[in-house]
């Protein structure tokens, strides 16, 4: 059997109690689009599945004191179509709108995209550039974790789905000088893992000539969504121009250091695509003619 029991608790504490009673033989399920396959393939084992999608406290997308917070039961489709996300973090709306297929987006959750811990997860990539945090609930209490700390290795989350529940993700609003961008390159337009994806979050300074903050994320170039921090620092320390953008993109491609892969493409191609897509996205965002 792939599991013996399936429960849909109505509250976070009920869910945590179910997991505790299962003594390590229970597991959290949200949309299930990754987990059902993993259980079928015996990659994970569970006697009890605790379905958190019926918990009302996990179904929000809202602004809370300058942060935008999204609950763990919220699907990619909901994020993609929500006005608040479209206005404040368009890169996230775009990333979520390109996960899998329409049917998968109706079932799969944004927080689940983080927990599955894939390097080019289209929801997690923009969240990385937005410097998001995830909230993790356990019997002992709740904590907020910076997104990079949610990754333990390829496909491995630091959140223990047998005992803990990731309940929300949040990121700070970028403000009026903020801009976001997202790009994706894949063999097909749907149902295809990306050859390359990335997101950019920028804050211009008051003069408009410099970037007060530049954050870039790239995938799949490492075990988890990757931030080319040297490229970010370079962008922040030079006046904006095409030359600076091109150089930043070159630095990012070297930092990311993608290696030749039968699945994703050759090293040369992937580096060239990082330079192309990143510079194009930065150019469009900053309206450099």
């Amino acid at each position, binding site marked *: *059997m792939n599991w013996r*029991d*399936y429960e849909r608790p109505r509250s976070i504490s009920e869910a945590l109690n179910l997991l505790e009673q299962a003594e390590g033989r229970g597991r959290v399920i949200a949309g299930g689009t990754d987990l059902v*396959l993993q259980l079928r393939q015996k990659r994970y084992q569970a006697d009890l599945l605790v379905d958190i999608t019926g918990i009302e406290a996990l179904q929000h997308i809202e602004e809370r004191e300058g942060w935008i917070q999204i609950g763990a039961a919220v699907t990619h489709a909901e994020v993609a179509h929500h006005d608040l996300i479209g206005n404040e973090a368009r890169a996230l709306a775009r990333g979520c709108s390109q996960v899998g*297929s329409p*049917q998968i987006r109706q079932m799969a959750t944004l927080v689940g995209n983080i927990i599955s811990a894939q390097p080019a997860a289209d929801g997690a990539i923009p969240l990385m550039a937005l410097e998001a945090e995830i909230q993790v609930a356990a019997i002992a209490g709740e904590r907020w974790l910076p997104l990079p700390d949610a990754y333990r290795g390829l496909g491995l989350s630091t959140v223990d789905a047998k005992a803990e529940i990731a309940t929300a993700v949040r990121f700070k609003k970028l403000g009026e000088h903020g801009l976001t961008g997202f790009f994706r390159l894949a063999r097909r337009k749907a*149902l295809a893992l990306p050859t390359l994806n990335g997101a950019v979050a920028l804050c211009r300074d008051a003069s408009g000539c410099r970037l007060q903050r530049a954050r870039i994320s790239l995938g799949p170039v490492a075990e988890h969504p990757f931030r080319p921090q040297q490229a970010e620092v370079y962008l922040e320390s030079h006046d904006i121009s095409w030359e600076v953008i091109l150089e930043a993109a070159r630095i990012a491609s070297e930092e990311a250091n993608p290696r030749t892969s039968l699945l994703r493409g050759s090293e040369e191609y992937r580096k060239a695509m990082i330079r192309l897509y990143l510079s194009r996205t930065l150019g469009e965002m900053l309206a450099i003619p």
Partner: protein
Amino acid sequence: MIKLKKIKMTLNGRQCEVETAPDRILLDLLREDLGLTGTKKGCEQGECGACTVIMDGQAVLACLIPAAKAEGADIVTVEGLAAEGQLHPLQEAFWSEGAVQCGYCTPGMLLSAKALLDADPAPDVGQIRQAIAGNLCRCTGYTKIISAIQVAAEKIGHE
């Protein structure tokens, strides 16, 4: 002794109660427990869309949904399209436009299209393509499927 799970749902407009294994997948519940073989088993990995059904108004993949998740849900399968022996406009259009070859992708296509037209009665071609982006067809090349959906939208719009 396996503890069976009772699942109550609305299926094609009727109340339905089924007792099944707790790890039953919705696709198998429909095809095996309920004998509704219209929903097809393609890849069983969420990558082909042949198993598409409508759950609470949204097109979803039955091969990835634990049947227990359907508790209290409103499910529509391809068998629920024709009412009182009258084909749904989408079914008529797929037939008149020649959008069916082997027929294996068709139930999933019909339901993805229905979910689209229920939400947006006048989609443009781009929106139609997006709506069926999760349904693979190896026979038709998609053009007649897209025409059929346009024809059906037009017909429904005039009703």
